[in-house]
């Protein structure tokens, strides 16, 4: 029961996990796509900004370059840069300059370090590359200071033409710091949104999986109840009647009802059988007791008529005594079974060996050979009194069948999950007709037998959850085989007994 619940819980947990993983992976994939798209968008807008600014400087630069109007050139450059930045502290513009086609500085945002009228002297390798690219530029282009995701700056390069002659180059370098912080901010937003969506998705996933699993749990619990022999009334209304689970629930309900009917029928049959068996036993007891009683009453009647006839007394008293003994034997057998049923004691297989002595007493001085072979491990636990009774009954039966001479083999061994107790004799064997009635109460082939020994044996084997088998052929001896479950659950046995 408990294990079933856990496995169902696992199913719902798995469901939740799978839903969460799907939602999360979809969410994060979309998130990543948005972040990357944002990155490219920001980068593109920065590229456009650098080109736009460079173009706007180039537009006014043309005339100033031609007129050698350094101050206007500088003012325009500075104004554009300042306008773009909003304030001077903004680090958006890293540098801006106007060069002549040979690379001489015509105007520079930082004239102190880049003197006008001198050739620009780039310090770093990247600056040198940007410088030579700008000198070669024939059309506007963007120069990147680094790789795709590690770009320290973006530079717009716009050559200035007058009458199709290149008269200068405008270079405007923008910092990517803003780009990175923008991208980071957007990434944080996307991640937060995605995480929230994943959480919400998982929450609904959990609700959904619970809803989905609940009918299964109810069905499973229902099946458990059936296993225990109860027939619960399922709350069918919680199932979607058209869905697969609804169908399953309907089928289950139908099956449960069928099983209930079947069990009722079986119970009735069992009760009938019990009545029949009781009737048979009663009839048997009545018949068995009636025979000696009739003899005893006859004898007593005769003795009453001839109270002084000593010969008659001597003849009839032993008969009366024999009849009463017979009755006592029958009653004792019935009582014996009842007595044994009440007792519970467990032991290792050595308890079987105790029967050896008893068997020898039964054999007395008859020329019967008994071979004893007990191979059961010490770990095996046996319901002592019952198993002893079973084996002893089988041995007694064998000795009686052999009459005066023969061989009896006792074997006990383990076969997989079964314990096998075997008693074999080399007696006359059993006819087919007799074999079918062998375990009926009061069936006996011997005139002095009660016919209860094998019936009791059969019942006890059944009560231990085992089975009994007879292998016999006329003239070739008989083998009784008792199969018992190897793990004899004490409680179960007690329950069965109760």
């Amino acid at each position, binding site marked *: 029961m408990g294990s079933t619940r856990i496995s169902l819980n696992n199913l719902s947990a798995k469901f939740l996990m799978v839903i969460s993983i799907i939602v999360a992976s979809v969410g994060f994939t979309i998130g990543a796509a948005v972040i990357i798209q944002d990155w490219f968008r920001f980068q593109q807008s920065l590229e456009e900004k650098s080109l736009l600014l460079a173009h706007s400087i180039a537009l006014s630069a043309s005339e100033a370059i031609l007129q050698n109007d*350094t*101050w206007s050139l*500088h*003012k325009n450059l*500075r104004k554009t840069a300042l306008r773009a930045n909003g304030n001077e502290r903004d680090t958006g513009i890293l540098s801006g300059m106007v060069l002549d086609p040979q690379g001489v500085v015509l105007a520079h945002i930082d*004239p*102190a370090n880049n003197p006008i009228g001198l050739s620009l002297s780039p310090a770093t390798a990247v600056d040198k590359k940007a410088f030579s690219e700008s000198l070669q530029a024939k059309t506007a282009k963007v120069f990147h200071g680094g790789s795709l995701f590690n770009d320290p700056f973006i530079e717009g390069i716009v050559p200035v033409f007058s009458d199709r002659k290149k008269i200068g180059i405008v270079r405007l370098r923008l910092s990517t710091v803003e780009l990175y912080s923008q991208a980071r901010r957007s990434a944080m937003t996307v991640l937060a949104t995605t995480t929230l969506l994943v959480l919400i998705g998982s929450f609904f996933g959990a609700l959904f999986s619970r809803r989905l699993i609940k009918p299964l749990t109810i069905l499973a619990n229902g099946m458990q109840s059936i296993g225990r022999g109860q027939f619960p009334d399922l709350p069918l209304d919680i199932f979607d009647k058209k869905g697969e689970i609804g169908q399953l629930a309907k089928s289950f309900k139908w099956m449960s009802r069928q099983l209930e009917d079947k069990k009722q029928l079986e119970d009735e049959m069992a009760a009938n059988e019990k009545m029949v068996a009781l009737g048979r036993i009663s009839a048997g007891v009545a018949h068995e007791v009636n025979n000696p009683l009739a003899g005893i009453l006859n004898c007593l009647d005769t003795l009453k008529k001839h109270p002084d006839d000593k010969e008659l007394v001597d003849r009839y008293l032993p008969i009366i005594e024999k009849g009463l003994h017979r009755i006592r034997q029958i009653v004792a057998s019935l009582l014996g079974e009842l007595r044994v049923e009440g007792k519970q004691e467990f032991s290792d297989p050595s308890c079987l060996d105790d029967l050896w002595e008893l068997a020898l007493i039964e054999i007395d001085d008859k020329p019967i050979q008994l071979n004893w072979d007990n191979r059961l491990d010490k770990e095996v636990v046996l319901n002592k009194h019952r198993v002893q009774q079973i084996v002893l009954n089988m041995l007694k039966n064998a000795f009686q069948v052999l009459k005066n001479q023969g061989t009896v083999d006792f074997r006990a061994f383990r076969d997989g999950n079964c314990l096998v107790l075997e008693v074999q004799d080399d007696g006359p064997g059993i006819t087919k007709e007799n074999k079918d009635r062998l375990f009926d109460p009061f069936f006996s082939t011997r005139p002095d037998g009660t016919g209860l020994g094998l019936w009791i044996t059969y019942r006890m084997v059944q009560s231990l959850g085992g089975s009994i088998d007879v292998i016999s052929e006329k003239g070739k001896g008989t083998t009784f085989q008792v199969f018992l479950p190897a793990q004899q659950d004490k409680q179960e046995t007690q329950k069965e007994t109760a």
Partner: protein
Amino acid sequence: MKRVLLLFPVLLSLLFISVRAEERKPVRFGLTAVVVRENLRFFDDMADYLSQKMGRPVKFVQRKSYREIMDMLESGKLEFAWICGYPFIQKRKPEYLKLLTVPIYKGAPFYRSYIIVHHDSSYKDIAELKGSVFAFSDPDSNSGFLYPQFFLTTRNFNFNQFFRQTFFTYNHAETVEAVAARVADGGAVDSYIWDFLKKTNPQIAQKTRVIHASSLFGFPPIVARKSVSVDLTKKMTRALTEMNKNPAGKQLLNTLHLDGFGQFSADIFDDIKVMAEKIKNRQITSSLDRLNGTAKP
């Protein structure tokens, strides 16, 4: 005759209307880089003041260069102008300008030319600026172009090859800016403007320092077209020269950092005339040298 008599009042009224129209037409007053022109609200106040004193609207007109203002004076688009001493002394045929009044600065109608450099630079003498970038204000400015040219020439430097690069800002204040921003290593400015900026815009002016000051020159004068009526000329002269005699005028003069306007002889500009002539002769000589292939570097 009757008809003529009838016509007379009509003519009279027409004359009257035209005089009235003349009176309502604004007097145009040209401004050049000799004053800080960026203070627009001040010149609105100044125009209001002059209008009130003269009984006619006065309008200030600004152009980028001296040349443009001079052209406007010549073509009659301006009645008055505040120009530099250098354009004033240049010969014109026929002469169309007359001197009206000269501002009095620090008690006299004089100013100087300053050679300035960036405050943090190591320049101590104008000679050290050889091969540097230099900013002039206007090709027609005395303090901002003529004087440094003259000074270098008298010290036997070839002015045309002395600096690596030169440019005009057309504004003394912007020359100070160019030096402060290190676009130029040095610049030539009007002492009045530099002192003015030092007080009104110290964060820029303080980034520069003066390494050379010229001798005194006649302060940039107020001139009038000769064709302007005597009446109007007199009104303008009186309005300006009497500014320091009333509180409103005094306040305007204080804003300009001037003591007043006075009437002086055109002789105070003779020094500029001499310099200009010397430069001209030198230029002719040097261009002749160039033609003869005897120019020295």
